[in-house]
């Protein structure tokens, strides 16, 4: 049964990758040829991809007998899932399909990264057997997804002027103020969930290692990312950093997120390296 589930997950995962790829291409074509119908099809594909992706994660969960959130592969695929979920919500909420053309490559890269990781199912070492790990990683998925969206919105903001000359995009990209607000909203969502991630991680560390904060490089980098977004919020209030500066910050913030996620494991050894 569990073998079958893992096999099903493998097949679903490949299908999901292909669907996300197709959705990404459709979003690109939509931006290039400016046909509304393409955007809608891309959106439907993305929804279908997310549904299958959810099924894949459920299969893996059943197949491994635990939450599928415990190693680099599982976290990468869940991260792509979170990114798609949040981007779908934002695309729908703000009728903003151009966002898909910017967020789908990010999630495709992330799922591509997942595909490069080992998919073997291992039993969990004792330190990882904690429901707090489940909370920790699932909140991280949403946080990373939201920051991914803010990154995409930031890029759109920075490139907006090139599009607007073409008229069509003027109607399909929100005005500067709204775009800035969407960026702010996604940062807010990400920051709230990043705070959850850090706090649940601290609670877990306290239970597993007897210390809720040890300045482990990964902890420290999540704190740095958190501080960077806090600086952004204060600068918004203080200097009215909106628009361009905010967009640049969203891009830098996401680079930090990615560094915390991949870079720290790769370049700096620490407690999280076994993940």
């Amino acid at each position, binding site marked *: 049964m569990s073998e079958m589930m893992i096999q099903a997950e493998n097949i679903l995962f490949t299908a999901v990758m292909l669907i996300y790829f197709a959705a990404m291409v459709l979003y690109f074509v939509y931006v290039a040829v400016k046909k509304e119908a393409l955007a809608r099809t891309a959106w439907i594909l993305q929804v279908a991809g997310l549904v299958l992706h959810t099924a894949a994660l459920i299969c893996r969960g059943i197949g491994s007998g635990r939450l599928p959130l415990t190693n680099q592969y599982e976290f990468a695929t869940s991260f792509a899932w979170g990114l798609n979920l949040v981007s779908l919500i934002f695309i729908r909420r703000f009728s903003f399909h151009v966002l898909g053309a910017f967020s789908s490559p990010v999630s495709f890269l992330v799922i591509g990264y997942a595909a490069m990781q080992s998919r073997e199912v291992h*039993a969990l070492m*004792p330190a990882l057997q904690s429901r707090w790990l489940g909370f920790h990683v699932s909140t991280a998925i949403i946080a990373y997804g939201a920051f991914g969206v803010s990154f995409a919105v930031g890029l759109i903001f920075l490139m907006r002027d090139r599009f607007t000359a073409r008229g069509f995009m003027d109607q399909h990209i929100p005005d500067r*103020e709204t775009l800035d607000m969407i960026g702010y909203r996604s940062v807010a969502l990400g920051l*709230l969930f990043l705070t959850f991630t850090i706090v649940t991680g601290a609670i877990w560390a306290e*239970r597993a290692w007897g210390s*809720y904060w040890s300045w482990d490089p990964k902890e420290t*980098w999540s704190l740095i990312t958190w501080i960077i977004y806090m*600086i952004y919020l204060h600068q918004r*209030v*203080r200097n009215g950093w909106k628009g361009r500066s905010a967009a640049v910050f969203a891009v830098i913030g996401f680079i930090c997120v990615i560094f915390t996620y991949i870079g720290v494991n790769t370049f700096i050894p620490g407690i999280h390296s076994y993940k």
Partner: protein
Amino acid sequence: MRFAVILLILLAAVCSVASIVPQNKGEQWYYGSYSEKTASLILFLDLDDAYHSWWFIAIGIFLCVNLLMCNVIRIPQLVKKHRRYTDPASAGSYGCDVQASGIGDPSGIFGRLGMTRVTEAKDGSGREILFASKNAVGIWGAWVCHLGILLLIVGFGLGQMLMRQYAVYGVAGQTRQIGDSGYVLTIDDFSVELRDDDTVDQYRAYITVKDSSGQSASSEISVNNPASLFGMKFYQNSTGWAAAVSVYKDGELLQRDVICAGEYVTVSDLPDLAVYFNAFYPDYILYEGRPATASGRLNNPGYLYSIYYRSQIVGMNVLMKDEKITVDDYTITFDEPQNYTVIQIKRDPFTPLAFIGAMVLILGLFINFYMPARIMWAVRGEELVWSVCGYSPKGGSIFRDEFEKAIREAAPEA
């Protein structure tokens, strides 16, 4: 707030440098791993223990003072603002972020924007208005965040300063003092639970703690499931192998001690002679010429030992089951291999404060981001039509969109 931003930038910069420099490795390590100049710079700047350096603590203290001042100073302002946001008389004094006129019945607009408590009142200039406010508490979001982070930093800082930590190790049946705490701990039982594939499923210990008056409490602990006894927390931290070392003289048992790998015993009637238990291999094999273990199971126990005489090493080997070491009149055996446990003990009365701080911070973020304060008021014009005005300092274009949607749905005539 400028100083706050500078402090935050400084904190981020310091943390990123400190995360790259390995911490607490000892002076020699830095000279061995970096150039002479870099190593001296690291040591001079305390970057080898950055998070406990005076300047790092200073940044923390500045941040706390700044947060406290900022929050105290802003209370009167916020109270005033809160009153204004809930007081219809101030309605006219705001600019309108959103506006529509020619509306027959404004109640649907209020309803659609989630403003259920609409009051009839007079504004500052005496006009009759309908007034509603929503999420006035939202203006406290940043204040609550600041309070939360302040409690968190204070809780963490006090914990770092005043926390007591101990470690106790031993095998089942042993009783040990818990440092200078006045408590003793007995390890009633300890087991390493293996799965079929030989990986560790759980480390589980049963402990009893006794205070000086003889009161005792027992609990089970395993990784991720610490126990709280006598205001201290007990963690199953790690494990290793121990064994019983027996020393015979002329065939008679002289002594028998249970020691952990890494420990030694001295022979009672010849203290110059010591037996050191270097390492243990439960399933002994030679792998590439070195001793190793094929699994975690006790299939073929091998004890790596060394014998010291007057602090000079005189012999070293791996002892297998039923083998003996003979040194002059003495015969030494190893048996009863078993796992010992390392139990970590912590007393930090400030952890709950840091936890409360974290919860308050999350609450503050939620209020700040998801409860934007809004007020709306409708003024009756001539011919029984109303104009509606809305104000939301944080709502921006999203408030405008929602307002426009509400108008389209509830008052298309506008």
